[in-house]
Protein backbone atom coordinates (compact mmCIF):
# COMPACT_ATOMS: atom_id res chain seq x y z
CA UNK A 1 0.00 0.00 0.00
CA UNK A 2 1.39 3.40 -0.94
CA UNK A 3 0.57 6.20 1.42
CA UNK A 4 1.24 9.93 1.00
CA UNK A 5 4.10 9.41 3.49
CA UNK A 6 5.70 6.81 1.23
CA UNK A 7 5.64 9.15 -1.74
CA UNK A 8 7.22 11.99 0.23
CA UNK A 9 9.88 9.77 1.77
CA UNK A 10 10.78 8.18 -1.55
CA UNK A 11 10.92 11.53 -3.24
CA UNK A 12 13.16 13.10 -0.62
CA UNK A 13 15.36 10.08 0.05
CA UNK A 14 17.48 11.00 -2.98
CA UNK A 15 20.21 13.38 -1.77
CA UNK A 16 20.42 15.43 -4.98
CA UNK A 17 16.69 15.87 -5.10
CA UNK A 18 16.58 16.73 -1.44
CA UNK A 19 19.33 19.32 -1.91
CA UNK A 20 17.33 20.95 -4.70
CA UNK A 21 14.25 21.03 -2.54
CA UNK A 22 16.20 22.46 0.41
CA UNK A 23 17.56 25.22 -1.79
CA UNK A 24 14.08 26.16 -2.92
CA UNK A 25 12.94 26.21 0.70
CA UNK A 26 15.89 28.35 1.72
CA UNK A 27 16.25 30.70 -1.21
CA UNK A 28 12.79 30.90 -2.69
CA UNK A 29 11.69 30.61 -6.30
CA UNK A 30 14.36 29.81 -8.89
CA UNK A 31 14.73 28.85 -12.53
CA UNK A 32 16.07 25.48 -13.70
CA UNK A 33 19.16 27.29 -14.96
CA UNK A 34 19.90 28.88 -11.60
CA UNK A 35 19.39 25.57 -9.83
CA UNK A 36 21.62 23.72 -12.30
CA UNK A 37 24.46 26.20 -11.87
CA UNK A 38 25.01 24.97 -8.32
CA UNK A 39 23.54 21.47 -8.35
CA UNK A 40 26.59 19.57 -9.55
CA UNK A 41 24.51 17.62 -12.05
CA UNK A 42 23.37 18.30 -15.62
CA UNK A 43 20.37 20.41 -16.49
CA UNK A 44 18.35 17.43 -17.80
CA UNK A 45 19.05 15.67 -14.48
CA UNK A 46 17.86 18.72 -12.55
CA UNK A 47 14.72 18.89 -14.69
CA UNK A 48 14.05 15.23 -14.04
CA UNK A 49 14.40 15.69 -10.27
CA UNK A 50 12.13 18.73 -10.39
CA UNK A 51 9.52 16.68 -12.25
CA UNK A 52 9.59 14.05 -9.49
CA UNK A 53 9.30 16.76 -6.83
CA UNK A 54 6.39 18.27 -8.72
CA UNK A 55 4.70 14.87 -8.95
CA UNK A 56 4.92 14.57 -5.16
CA UNK A 57 3.41 18.02 -4.76
CA UNK A 58 6.62 19.38 -3.24
CA UNK A 59 7.28 22.03 -5.89
CA UNK A 60 5.18 24.19 -8.16
CA UNK A 61 6.30 25.35 -11.59
CA UNK A 62 5.49 28.71 -13.11
CA UNK A 63 6.36 29.21 -16.79
CA UNK A 64 7.42 32.72 -17.71
CA UNK A 65 8.52 33.28 -21.27
CA UNK A 66 11.12 30.64 -22.09
CA UNK A 67 11.99 30.09 -18.43
CA UNK A 68 10.24 27.95 -15.85
CA UNK A 69 10.43 29.06 -12.24
CA UNK A 70 10.15 26.53 -9.43
CA UNK A 71 9.08 27.12 -5.84
CA UNK A 72 8.82 24.85 -2.79
CA UNK A 73 5.38 23.86 -1.54
CA UNK A 74 5.85 23.68 2.20
CA UNK A 75 2.33 22.49 2.90
CA UNK A 76 3.20 19.17 1.27
CA UNK A 77 5.52 18.43 4.20
CA UNK A 78 2.85 18.46 6.86
CA UNK A 79 2.53 14.64 6.94
CA UNK A 80 6.26 14.29 7.64
CA UNK A 81 6.17 16.63 10.56
CA UNK A 82 3.28 14.65 11.97
CA UNK A 83 5.53 11.61 11.84
CA UNK A 84 7.92 13.08 14.43
CA UNK A 85 4.95 13.67 16.65
CA UNK A 86 4.22 9.97 16.27
CA UNK A 87 7.74 9.20 17.54
CA UNK A 88 7.11 11.31 20.62
CA UNK A 89 3.79 9.48 20.91
CA UNK A 90 5.62 6.14 20.95
CA UNK A 91 7.65 7.23 23.97
CA UNK A 92 4.67 8.78 25.77
CA UNK A 93 2.96 5.44 25.42
CA UNK A 94 6.02 3.61 26.80
CA UNK A 95 6.13 6.00 29.75
CA UNK A 96 2.53 5.07 30.50
CA UNK A 97 3.45 1.39 30.50
CA UNK A 98 6.52 2.07 32.62
CA UNK A 99 4.45 3.89 35.23
CA UNK A 100 1.97 1.07 35.21
CA UNK A 101 4.81 -1.39 35.81
CA UNK A 102 6.26 0.75 38.64
CA UNK A 103 2.89 0.63 40.38
CA UNK A 104 2.88 -3.17 40.15
CA UNK A 105 6.50 -3.68 41.26
CA UNK A 106 7.44 -4.58 44.84
CA UNK A 107 8.73 -1.87 47.20
Amino acid at each position, binding site marked *: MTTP*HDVLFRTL*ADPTRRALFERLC*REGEQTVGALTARAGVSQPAVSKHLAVLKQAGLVLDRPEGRQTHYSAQLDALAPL*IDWTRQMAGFWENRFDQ*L*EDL*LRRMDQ
Partner: protein
Amino acid sequence: MSTTAAETLSVIVEREVGFPPEKVWRALTQPHLIAEWLMKNDFQPVVGHSFSLSAEWGAVDCRVETVEANRALSYTWEGLGLESVVTWTLTPTSTGTRLRMEQVGFRLDQQMAYRGATAGWPRFFDNLEQVLARAD
Protein backbone atom coordinates in the same frame (compact mmCIF):
# COMPACT_ATOMS: atom_id res chain seq x y z
CA MET B 1 19.01 25.20 6.71
CA SER B 2 22.70 24.57 7.18
CA THR B 3 24.00 21.03 6.90
CA THR B 4 25.16 21.01 10.50
CA ALA B 5 21.82 22.11 11.84
CA ALA B 6 20.09 19.49 9.74
CA GLU B 7 21.87 16.57 11.31
CA THR B 8 20.08 16.10 14.57
CA LEU B 9 16.69 16.28 16.05
CA SER B 10 15.67 15.24 19.50
CA VAL B 11 12.52 13.77 20.90
CA ILE B 12 12.18 14.53 24.59
CA VAL B 13 9.66 13.05 26.97
CA GLU B 14 9.83 14.05 30.60
CA ARG B 15 7.61 13.00 33.44
CA GLU B 16 7.40 13.09 37.23
CA VAL B 17 6.76 9.66 38.68
CA GLY B 18 5.87 8.95 42.28
CA PHE B 19 8.60 6.38 42.85
CA PRO B 20 12.21 6.68 44.04
CA PRO B 21 15.06 6.68 41.48
CA GLU B 22 16.28 3.28 42.69
CA LYS B 23 13.00 1.67 41.73
CA VAL B 24 12.78 3.46 38.39
CA TRP B 25 16.36 2.40 37.72
CA ARG B 26 15.42 -1.27 38.19
CA ALA B 27 12.60 -0.90 35.68
CA LEU B 28 15.03 0.65 33.20
CA THR B 29 17.82 -1.90 33.62
CA GLN B 30 16.43 -5.34 34.46
CA PRO B 31 15.63 -7.33 31.29
CA HIS B 32 12.42 -8.93 32.54
CA LEU B 33 11.16 -5.52 33.67
CA ILE B 34 12.24 -3.75 30.46
CA ALA B 35 10.28 -6.38 28.56
CA GLU B 36 7.13 -5.34 30.39
CA TRP B 37 7.10 -1.73 29.31
CA LEU B 38 9.39 -1.46 26.29
CA MET B 39 10.33 -4.59 24.33
CA LYS B 40 11.86 -8.04 24.67
CA ASN B 41 15.59 -7.67 25.18
CA ASP B 42 18.95 -9.03 26.32
CA PHE B 43 20.01 -5.86 28.07
CA GLN B 44 22.84 -5.74 30.62
CA PRO B 45 23.80 -2.55 32.47
CA VAL B 46 27.39 -2.74 31.25
CA VAL B 47 29.04 -0.08 29.07
CA GLY B 48 29.81 -1.51 25.63
CA HIS B 49 27.27 -4.33 25.93
CA SER B 50 25.39 -4.89 22.69
CA PHE B 51 21.78 -5.93 22.92
CA SER B 52 18.63 -5.90 20.89
CA LEU B 53 15.08 -4.89 21.50
CA SER B 54 12.49 -6.82 19.58
CA ALA B 55 8.80 -6.59 18.90
CA GLU B 56 6.38 -7.95 16.31
CA TRP B 57 7.11 -4.99 14.05
CA GLY B 58 10.87 -5.37 14.06
CA ALA B 59 14.06 -5.14 16.06
CA VAL B 60 16.32 -2.36 17.27
CA ASP B 61 20.07 -2.85 17.76
CA CYS B 62 21.51 -1.15 20.78
CA ARG B 63 24.79 -0.69 22.61
CA VAL B 64 25.14 0.59 26.14
CA GLU B 65 26.98 3.91 26.28
CA THR B 66 26.52 5.21 29.81
CA VAL B 67 25.62 3.57 33.09
CA GLU B 68 25.45 5.74 36.22
CA ALA B 69 23.38 3.75 38.69
CA ASN B 70 20.13 5.47 39.68
CA ARG B 71 21.09 8.59 37.70
CA ALA B 72 21.70 8.14 33.99
CA LEU B 73 21.57 5.50 31.31
CA SER B 74 22.16 5.80 27.60
CA TYR B 75 22.29 3.43 24.69
CA THR B 76 22.47 3.67 20.94
CA TRP B 77 19.26 2.85 19.13
CA GLU B 78 19.65 1.67 15.59
CA GLY B 79 17.09 -0.08 13.49
CA LEU B 80 15.06 0.33 10.34
CA GLY B 81 17.53 3.01 9.30
CA LEU B 82 17.20 4.96 12.49
CA GLU B 83 20.50 5.89 14.09
CA SER B 84 20.12 7.55 17.42
CA VAL B 85 21.03 7.58 21.08
CA VAL B 86 18.47 7.24 23.83
CA THR B 87 19.44 8.86 27.12
CA TRP B 88 17.55 8.42 30.36
CA THR B 89 18.10 10.84 33.21
CA LEU B 90 16.71 10.30 36.71
CA THR B 91 16.54 13.23 39.11
CA PRO B 92 15.25 12.72 42.65
CA THR B 93 12.39 14.99 43.70
CA SER B 94 10.52 15.40 47.01
CA THR B 95 7.82 13.05 45.76
CA GLY B 96 9.77 10.62 43.61
CA THR B 97 11.70 10.99 40.39
CA ARG B 98 11.77 13.29 37.42
CA LEU B 99 12.36 10.91 34.54
CA ARG B 100 13.58 12.31 31.24
CA MET B 101 14.08 10.45 27.97
CA GLU B 102 15.88 12.14 25.13
CA GLN B 103 16.39 10.48 21.77
CA VAL B 104 18.87 12.34 19.58
CA GLY B 105 20.57 11.99 16.24
CA PHE B 106 18.27 10.57 13.63
CA ARG B 107 20.54 10.46 10.63
CA LEU B 108 19.72 9.70 7.05
CA ASP B 109 22.21 7.28 5.60
CA GLN B 110 22.40 8.00 1.90
CA GLN B 111 23.20 4.38 1.09
CA MET B 112 19.99 3.20 2.61
CA ALA B 113 16.92 2.45 0.65
CA TYR B 114 13.45 3.69 1.17
CA ARG B 115 12.80 2.05 4.51
CA GLY B 116 15.94 3.59 5.91
CA ALA B 117 14.95 6.89 4.49
CA THR B 118 11.59 6.81 6.22
CA ALA B 119 13.23 6.25 9.56
CA GLY B 120 16.12 8.64 8.99
CA TRP B 121 14.05 11.53 7.84
CA PRO B 122 13.46 13.32 11.10
CA ARG B 123 16.98 14.83 11.08
CA PHE B 124 15.57 17.21 8.53
CA PHE B 125 12.31 17.91 10.30
CA ASP B 126 13.45 20.47 12.80
CA ASN B 127 14.78 22.62 10.02
CA LEU B 128 11.65 22.16 8.01
CA GLU B 129 9.62 23.16 11.02
CA GLN B 130 11.68 26.33 11.31
CA VAL B 131 11.07 27.05 7.65
CA LEU B 132 7.37 26.38 8.06
CA ALA B 133 7.24 28.66 11.09
CA ARG B 134 8.86 31.44 9.09
CA ALA B 135 6.47 30.85 6.22
CA ASP B 136 3.41 31.74 8.31
